[in-house]
C-alpha cells in the first residue's frame, strides 16, 4: 500500500473542502472497497478523509420537498442498519431484500450506503495491475472485452469498457426512483435522480458516476410508493450466498383491478450502471399480471442485450429472472 495521509473529518464543509482541494484524495467510509483497492495498488490516493463520524447515518421520514412522506436513508448509514430499519422494512422491503442479498453480514455491518453507491466494479482485469484496463488506466485497453467476460455487461457497454456495477442495493434504489442527495463543493446541496447517478462507460470508463471530486453523498431519498406488498429482489449467483450477481432483478408492482397500474423492473449484473428495464416496464403498464405478459416483457427488455463471448447465457438467464422476480413479487415478495 502506498503511504497516504489520514484525517478524520470534523464537519461536512471541512470534509468536502479537503477532498475538493486535493484531486488525489478520497473519502473513507466503511473501507470495505477502497482499502482492498489500495492494497492491490488499484486506487492510489495520497490522502483519505474519514467521514464516518459525520452525522449522516439516520433513517427518517422525509418532512418536506418533492419526496415528502418518503424515507431518507443516511449516506453514512451502515448497510445492515439501513436494511433492518422499520421504516425501510415496512415501506421498501425491496430495498431490505436487495441489501441483504449483498456481500456478507460482516461486510454489510461495515459498509455504508454512500460507499455502496460508489463501490467500483469487480472486473478482475480492473483489479490486476498487470492487466490492461481503461477504467484503471485510461488508454491502456480493455482486458475483459476479449478476455474472460462471463461476469460482464449485456447493456450499454462500449469497446472501452464492458464492466458491470456490482451493487445489489443500487438495483433496488434505481427501481424505487430514489434521489441521491449530495453536498456540493460550493456548499450547496444538490439532488440527483438515481437513474442519472451512475454512468455508462462510453470512452471515459474511469468515471463511474457523475459525482465531482469532493462531493459527499449525505442521503438517499426514496419517494413514497405503493409497492410494499408486491415487490421482490431476485439474485442469481454462482453459489447460494456471498457472491456477486450473475444477474439480479428488482421487481415491484402496483395492481389496480386486473391491470398493472405501476411497475418497476431493474437489473443488476448486466450493465455499467444499475439497469432500469424500461422496455419491460413499458410493455407491462396497463396490462394484466400474467405469466405470458411477464415473458413478453422480459423478451422486450432482453431483445436489446448485446452479449459478449462468455456471457451469452445471461440473456436467457436475464429473461427468466425477470419473469421469476415479477411472479414472486405478485406472490407478495416471499421466497415461496
Amino acid at each position, binding site marked *: 500500500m*502506498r503511504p497516504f495521509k489520514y484525517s478524520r473529518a470534523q464537519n461536512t464543509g471541512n470534509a468536502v473542502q479537503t477532498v475538493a482541494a486535493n484531486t488525489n484524495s478520497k473519502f473513507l467510509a466503511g473501507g470495505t472497497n477502497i482499502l482492498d483497492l489500495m492494497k492491490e495498488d488499484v486506487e492510489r490516493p495520497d490522502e483519505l478523509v474519514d467521514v464516518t463520524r459525520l452525522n449522516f447515518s439516520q433513517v427518517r421520514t422525509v418532512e418536506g420537498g418533492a419526496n415528502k412522506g418518503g424515507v431518507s436513508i443516511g449516506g453514512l448509514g451502515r448497510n445492515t442498519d439501513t436494511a433492518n430499519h422499520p421504516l425501510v422494512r415496512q415501506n421498501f422491503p425491496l430495498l431490505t431484500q436487495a441489501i441483504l442479498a449483498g456481500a456478507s453480514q460482516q461486510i454489510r455491518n461495515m459498509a455504508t450506503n454512500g460507499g455502496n453507491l460508489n463501490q467500483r466494479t469487480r472486473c478482475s*482485469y480492473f483489479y490486476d495491475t498487470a492487466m490492461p484496463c481503461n477504467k484503471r488506466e485510461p488508454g491502456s485497453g480493455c482486458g475483459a472485452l476479449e478476455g474472460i467476460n462471463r461476469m460482464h455487461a449485456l447493456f450499454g457497454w462500449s469497446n472501452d469498457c464492458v464492466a458491470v456495477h456490482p451493487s445489489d442495493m443500487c438495483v433496488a434504489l434505481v427501481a424505487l426512483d430514489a434521489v441521491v442527495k449530495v453536498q456540493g463543493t460550493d456548499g450547496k446541496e444538490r439532488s440527483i435522480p438515481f437513474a442519472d447517478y451512475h454512468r455508462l462507460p462510453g470512452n471515459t470508463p474511469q468515471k463511474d458516476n457523475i459525482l465531482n471530486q469532493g462531493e459527499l453523498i449525505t442521503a438517499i431519498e426514496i419517494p413514497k410508493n405503493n409497492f410494499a406488498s408486491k415487490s421482490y429482489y431476485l439474485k442469481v449467483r454462482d*453459489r*447460494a450466498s456471498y457472491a456477486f450477481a450473475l444477474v439480479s432483478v428488482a421487481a415491484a408492482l402496483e395492481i389496480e383491478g386486473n391491470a398493472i397500474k405501476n411497475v418497476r423492473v431493474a437489473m443488476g449484473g448486466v450493465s455499467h450502471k444499475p439497469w432500469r428495464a424500461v422496455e419491460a416496464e413499458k410493455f407491462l403498464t396497463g396490462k394484466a399480471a400474467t405469466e405470458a405478459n411477464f415473458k413478453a416483457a422480459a423478451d422486450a427488455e432482453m431483445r436489446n442485450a448485446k452479449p459478449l463471448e462468455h456471457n451469452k447465457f445471461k440473456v436467457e438467464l436475464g429473461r427468466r429472472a425477470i419473469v*421469476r422476480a415479477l411472479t414472486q413479487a405478485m406472490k407478495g415478495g416471499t421466497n415461496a
Partner: protein
Amino acid sequence: MAEIGKPINRIDGRLKVTGAAKYAAEFNQPQMAYAFPVRSTIANGTIRKLDTSQAQASPGVISILTHENAPRLKPFSREQLRTLGTNVGEDLVVLQDIRVHYFGQFIACVVAETYEQARHAANLVEAEYAEEKPKIDLSEELPNGLRPEKKAYGPEAQLNTGKAAEPLRAAPIKFEQIYKTSYETHNPMEPNGSVAWWDGADKLTIQESTQGVLTERAVIAYYFDLKPENVRVVSRFTGGGFGNKAFPWTSNVLAVMAAKVAKRPVKLVITRQMMQTNVGRRGETVQTVALGAEKNGRLTVMRHHNETYAKLTNFFEPSGETSEILYNTPLREITYKVAELNLGAPTYMRAPGESPGSFAAESAMDELAYELKIDPINLRVMNHTTVHPQKKLPFSSEYLKECYRTGAAKFGWARRKIEPRQVRNGRYLVGYGMAAATYPGERGTATVRIQMTADGGVKVLCATHDIGTGTYTILAQTAADALGVPIGKITVEIGDSNLPPAPLSSGARTAATVGPAVQAAGEALRRDLLHLTLAGKQSKLNGKKADEIDFSNAKFFVRSDASKTDSYIDIMRRNDRTMMESCMTTVPDAAKSPSESCLIAPTSREENKNEEKYAFHSFGAQFAEVWVDEDLGTIRVKRITSVQDVGRIMNEKTARSQIIGGVIFGIGSALMEESQFDKRWANPVTRTLADYHVPVNLDVTEIDVHFIGKPDPRISPIGARGVGEIGIVGISAAIANAVFNATGKRLRDLPFTPDKLI
C-alpha cells in the same frame, strides 16, 4: 481400548478457539524484517531488465533480491531430492535465472522493515521482458502432449494401451462420453507462510506452515548446502493443508534466502493472489470413458483416457486412479496424455486423481445403469470386485457392498425413481444420485518417543503434523490406551523436525502411520514399568506373572484380586526414576528399514501391511439429494449421506469432521470451484476468494456420515486407514447423477454453475 474411537473434542480445540494456538506467521522474532515477492506480469519469456532503483529508495527497504544478486543455490535435481526422501512443489529454483515460466512467478523480493513498506516497494520494481506467447489452452497443446511412462510416485501410467478397442467393438452394450473437470486451487484459510532466521552461516530455523517438516528440512538443506541436522523446521499448527503445503514451494525457499541476505529473521507470507499462482493447483482434465457390457450389465471392458497438463514437475493429475480399482472387468485400458502449459506446477490436491477421476468414471456407471434400466447400486454390486484388479490380490478389508447397503437404507434410496423428472417440490425438481468411492490405504514408517515423568505426566513426541485433522487428539487417545493412563495426563508434541521422524502428512496416512508407533512406544513403556513392579521388593505385585496383571488409570492390578495394585507414580518413585521413556519405530512390511530409527517394533507380517498378500484400500458410498431450479439453473445440494469403510475409527468426531470436510470440498468441486485463466496472457482471473468460489454455509446442508467401523486387521495392529481424502471422492459424480435424476440433463463439465444448466 477405552479411548480410541471415542468422539472426544480436540485436545487442542481450546487453544484454537481462543487464539492461543500459534500458526507459523505468528512467531514474530526480535529484529524481524518482512519480505514481499515481486511477481512476473508475463507468463512466458525472459527478463530483460529489472529496475529496482525506485524500490531501493523507498522507505524502510533493507534489500532487494533479484536473479542478479540472489545467493546461488544448488541446482534442482529430482534424483538427488529423491535420495533424500523428499521432493519440491515446483522444479524451479527461485531467482537463479531470467526465465519466466508462468504468470505471477517470483522474479524479485523486497525485504523491508515493515510489511507495508515491503509491499509498497515491491510495486515499484519495474521489469522489462522479452515476451513469448504463452501456452495456456489445453486443447490446443494436447496434440503436442506426451504420454508419460510413470506416475510421479512410481507406478506405470499407461495400462493396456490400445487393447480396449476390440472388446469395445464386440460388446453388446457400448457407452462412451467425454467428461471435463476444472482447474481447482487449494485455498486453505491460512496462506503459505514462513518465518526464517539464521544462526550464523550454517544454522537455520524456520517456523513454517507445512504438511512436512522433514521433507522441507531436506529440501532447504539441499538447496542451501547445509547439514540437515542444522536446519530446524517447526510447524505446530497448520491452518489447512490440502496438498499445497506438502512440498516446499519457491516462497519457502525465498523466505530463507531473504533472511540470509538481510541477516535478520524474515517473515514471508504469500497473499491470496499468490496462492492462485505460486503454490500449485489441480490440473484441468479431459477424460474419455468407454464402457462395454453384456445386456445384463456385466462389464466386459473399461477404457479411461485421461488428458491434463504438467509444468515444472513430473506430477500430473492421475485421474484414472479409481478406474484401476473399482469393478471387475476382463479388460481395462487406462492412458494418460499430458501437455505442457505456461502455468505453475500442478500438484497434489485432496484425493489427487480420485476426485476428478471418480467424477468421470462414476458418472459413466450411472449413465450405463440408466441405459440398461438397472438400479445404479445393482450395477455396481454386479460388477463388484473383492480383489485388486491389477495386483490380483485380495483387499485387506473391504466392505463396499455394506457401504451401499447402509447408505441406501439411511438415505432412503428406495424412494428414488429410475426415470428422471418424476419428483417436484414447488418450483424445484428433486433428484437422487449416488457414487462409489475408493482411496488407497497408505501407511509409512514412523518413530515415536514417549516420556513419563515422576508426576505421571506423559509426553508423546513425533515429527508428524496436525493440519487441522485431529492428529493431536488421536495420538493422545492412542497413547492413553497403550499406557493405560487418563487422557488428561497426556501432552502431544509434534510439528518439529527435531522430533523423531514421521512422513509427510499427506495421502491420508498420518493416523495409519503414526498411530501404530504411538501404540508400540506406549506398550514398551508400560512393559518397562511392569517389569519394575513385578521385580520390585516393596511392590504388592512382586512375584506375580505378567499375564496375571491388568492395567488402567495409571495403575497395575492383579486381575483376580483388584485390591492388589501398584501405580505408575509409585513404581517410578520407588525406583528413583524422575523420567522413563521409550522409543519405537514401526515399519510396514513392504518398507525398507530406516537408516536412523529406534527399536523396530516386532509386528507379525499378517498385520503389518503385507503388500505381497493384500491390497490396501478404503471404500465408500456417497448419496446426494439435489433440488434444481431449472429456470435459473441453480442446484442446491439438500443432503448428502456418506458411508465410509476406512478401518478403525480413531475418534468418531474428528473422523466425521474429516469426511464432512471432504464432502464440502466435493460440493465445491461439483458446483463452483474453478480457476480460470485468460487465453492470451495466462493470468488467472480468479484472483481472490471473491472470484474463486468455495462453498459457504448456505451451500452446505445436512451431511449424514456413517462409518462401517470394521478395523482393518492387516494394515496395522491398530487397524485404522486414513479418513482425510476419501470424503471428497465420488461427491461430484453423486451430485451429477442426482441432477440427471432430477432434470434428465446430463452434466459432464465441472463445475455446474447456472450457465451449464439453462
